[in-house]
């Protein structure tokens, strides 16, 4: 290790920025707050880039450093340590890079909001926790970051805390996450119990002696519990319900936390734990099934939503499902690849949506937009790039990663045709609803009523300012800059995956598992010939080419359908919706999942809490005990206080009587 290797700086720099802004920001000017936030984020990004170079130049699989012991209990100990390998390197670059761009964007976007310093302090705190999560060298430190980003997410969703819906959405996100965290925590306990350590390197070492569990064993249990945690954080079925509501937060927050970084923590965790999941095929299958179902269901909901941010939220859930599907078929590198490209194009989509909302004065309903192409050419151009990217149309980034996932779902020994087929259908729906969003927002005529745009402020937007203008307008350059940069990344970001280069890039992280997968020879057998054929066919097999064309066709079909329905004959969607009334209503209302949870879980929970815990246990038992003992003390005192009459002779009489009693007792004792 050279003295240049100081990875602790990467998470600490945003923490310093957050502390400065959080403690003193109230007295700073807006420019000063923004400067502090941007400086420390940028510094963190620069340091992260430097360390990425160090890692790549060192040729090592992973660089690990420890900065002292945190907990020591017998033979069990946990360090403040940093583990830098190719996986955490990608994550940290995405977090700091995209994070910095979003900070820049926020400077302009949050200009007119109250609590400017609070916003940036939270945002920097989020960066700190996210980097802790990503760079930790053990699961406990990861869990600290895991909880920390949950806290930051709660604070930022409820940033406009005077609005009931925002405060409630924050609570919903936090509580739903707690359910998942519970699973994660149990998984950690199991790890400690069985392996006596939470350090990745130690665990990888120990587990390498374990065979693949064909039946359900404790590795499967750990895997499934980790999946519960990942489901909470990454908004998978059945814990996805918080993410759409999280859109109550400011749009840059949605972009950074609820699209690009925090929600991918679950995917990162599954990939990081590949040494466990690869030995627990049942857990792996569960990951794949949950991922596939989530991506499919979320996409269907996304088709019917009219709130621009909610469409993107469901699209995020759906894309996260893709990543889980990839991880579930043991194609971890494909999952991380999609995670990275998704961070680019989904951050871009959200920032673009923010720019649109900014431009039309806080309106979020796509039905009241339209024709914005003329007013906001840059936003339109970048949004188009992102839409093409997410739809999987080459040569944009999403195509490469999504195609990789579909191919892996099709061909991996852990995959199946069903995953692939549902993935393909989802790809079609993704393309459809994204172009629907694009067409509804940017094409046709502007449907928002100019003067009324102001009165809509504050009703359901999160961005009620800009009352100085009537018609839509382009956003300032401070906002467009990040859009353009992310646009470029959304185009070129996928090219690193050409010829399976990205897959091999992550080999050091994944390899140490598959190398000893002797118990599952089919996995090796299927993986290596594919690699062998690569050389001949320029990196791809014929089947892979065929699937590739198929997914492009599907994406174009989605585009075509959206064009047909929303540009050629805009009256058709309403007719179709009327035609399949029941089904449409079901999907429009998100399958009534929220209502179902409300009736099945939250309702009974509230009822039990109110009737049993509150009114019986708390009010009757606990309060009752306290109150009754107070009443008893008072009643006894009422009698006893009569003795204090103020009459000296009465006191003296009592003394005499009891003195006589004592004397009599002593005499009696003496005579025995």
């Amino acid at each position, binding site marked *: 290790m050279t003295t240049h290797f100081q990875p602790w700086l990467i998470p600490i720099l945003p923490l310093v920025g957050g502390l400065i802004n959080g403690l003193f920001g109230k007295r700073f000017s807006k420019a000063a707050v923004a400067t502090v936030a941007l400086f420390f984020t940028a510094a963190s990004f620069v340091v992260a880039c430097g360390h990425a170079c160090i890692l790549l130049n060192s040729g090592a699989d992973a660089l690990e450093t420890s900065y002292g012991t945190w907990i020591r209990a017998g033979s069990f100990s946990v360090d403040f340590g940093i583990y830098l390998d190719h996986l955490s390197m990608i994550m940290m670059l995405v977090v700091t890079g995209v994070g910095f761009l979003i900070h820049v964007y926020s400077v302009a976007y949050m200009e007119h909001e109250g609590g400017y310093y609070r916003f940036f302090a939270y945002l920097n705190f989020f960066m700190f926790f996210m980097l802790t999560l990503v760079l930790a060298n053990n699961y406990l430190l990861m869990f600290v970051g895991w909880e920390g980003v949950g806290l930051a997410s709660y604070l930022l969703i409820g940033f406009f805390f005077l609005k009931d819906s925002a405060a409630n959405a924050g609570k919903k996100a936090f509580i739903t996450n707690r359910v998942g965290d519970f699973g994660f925590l149990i998984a950690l306990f199991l790890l400690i119990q069985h392996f006596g350590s939470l350090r990745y390197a130690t665990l990888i070492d120990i587990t390498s002696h374990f065979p693949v569990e064909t039946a359900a064993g404790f590795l499967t249990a750990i895997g499934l519990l980790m999946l519960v945690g990942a489901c909470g954080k990454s908004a998978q079925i059945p814990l996805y319900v918080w993410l759409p509501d999280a859109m109550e937060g400011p749009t840059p927050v949605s972009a950074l936390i609820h699209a690009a970084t925090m929600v991918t923590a679950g995917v990162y965790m599954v990939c990081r734990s590949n040494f466990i999941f690869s030995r627990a095929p049942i857990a792996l299958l569960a990951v794949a099934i949950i991922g596939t179902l989530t991506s499919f269901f979320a996409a269907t909901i996304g088709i019917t939503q009219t709130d621009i941010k909610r469409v993107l939220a469901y699209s995020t859930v759906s894309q996260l499902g893709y990543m889980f599907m990839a991880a579930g078929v043991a194609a971890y590198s494909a999952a991380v690849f999609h995670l990275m490209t998704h961070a680019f194009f989904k951050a871009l989509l959200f920032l673009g949506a923010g720019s649109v909302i900014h431009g039309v004065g806080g309106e979020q309903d796509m039905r009241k937009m339209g024709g914005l192409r003329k007013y906001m050419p840059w936003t339109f151009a970048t949004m188009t790039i992102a839409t093409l990217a997410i739809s999987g149309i080459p040569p944009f980034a999403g195509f490469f990663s999504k195609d990789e996932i579909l191919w892996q779902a099709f061909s991996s020994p852990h995959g199946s045709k069903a995953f692939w087929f549902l993935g393909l259908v989802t790809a079609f729906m993704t393309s459809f609803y994204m172009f629907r969003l694009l067409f509804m927002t940017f094409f046709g005529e502007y449907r928002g009523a100019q003067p009324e745009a102001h009165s809509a402020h504050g009703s359901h937007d999160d961005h009620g300012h800009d009352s100085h203008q009537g018609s839509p307008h382009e956003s300032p350059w401070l906002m467009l800059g990040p859009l353009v940069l992310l646009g470029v990344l959304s185009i070129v970001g996928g090219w690193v995956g050409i010829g399976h280069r990205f897959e091999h890039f992550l080999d050091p992280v994944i390899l140490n598992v598959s190398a000893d997968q002797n118990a599952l020879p089919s996995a090796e057998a299927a993986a290596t010939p594919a690699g062998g054929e690569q050389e001949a066919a320029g990196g791809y097999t014929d089947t892979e080419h065929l699937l590739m064309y198929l997914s492009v066709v599907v994406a174009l079909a989605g585009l075509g359908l959206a064009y047909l329905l929303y540009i050629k004959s805009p009256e058709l969607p309403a007719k179709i919706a009327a035609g399949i009334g029941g089904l449409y209503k079901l999907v429009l209302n998100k399958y009534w999942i929220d209502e179902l949870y409300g009736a099945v879980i939250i309702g009974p929970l509230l009822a039990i809490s109110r009737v049993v815990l509150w009114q019986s246990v708390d009010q009757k038992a606990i309060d009752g005990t306290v109150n009754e003992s107070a009443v008893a003390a008072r009643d006894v005192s009422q009698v006893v206080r009569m003795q*204090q*009459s*103020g009459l000296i*002779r009465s006191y003296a*009489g009592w003394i005499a009587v009891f003195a006589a009693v004592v004397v009599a007792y002593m005499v009696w004792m003496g005579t025995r």
Partner: protein
Amino acid sequence: MIPISWYLLLSAFLFACGVTGFLTKRNLITLFMSIELMLNGVNLSFITFATRLGTLDGHIFVFFVMVVAAAEAAVGLAIIISVYRTRETLNVDRVNLLKL
């Protein structure tokens, strides 16, 4: 020689007189004198036993009691004077402010 029981009976009689006086009288000064009577009754039994057992313990105790009684007399009389100044009575039944 006078039997020891006579001394003790006298001592008990003095003490009983003190107790009875304390419980029945209302005048503060009378109460005060009753207390002195009780103390001296006890003193008498101390002396009796000390003489009988041939030790000095009882004598020393009596001196202590007398010292304390002297101090008590000083403080007590001061209190009685100040009670009389403020309440204009020495009837203990009417000096009953210290109650609930």
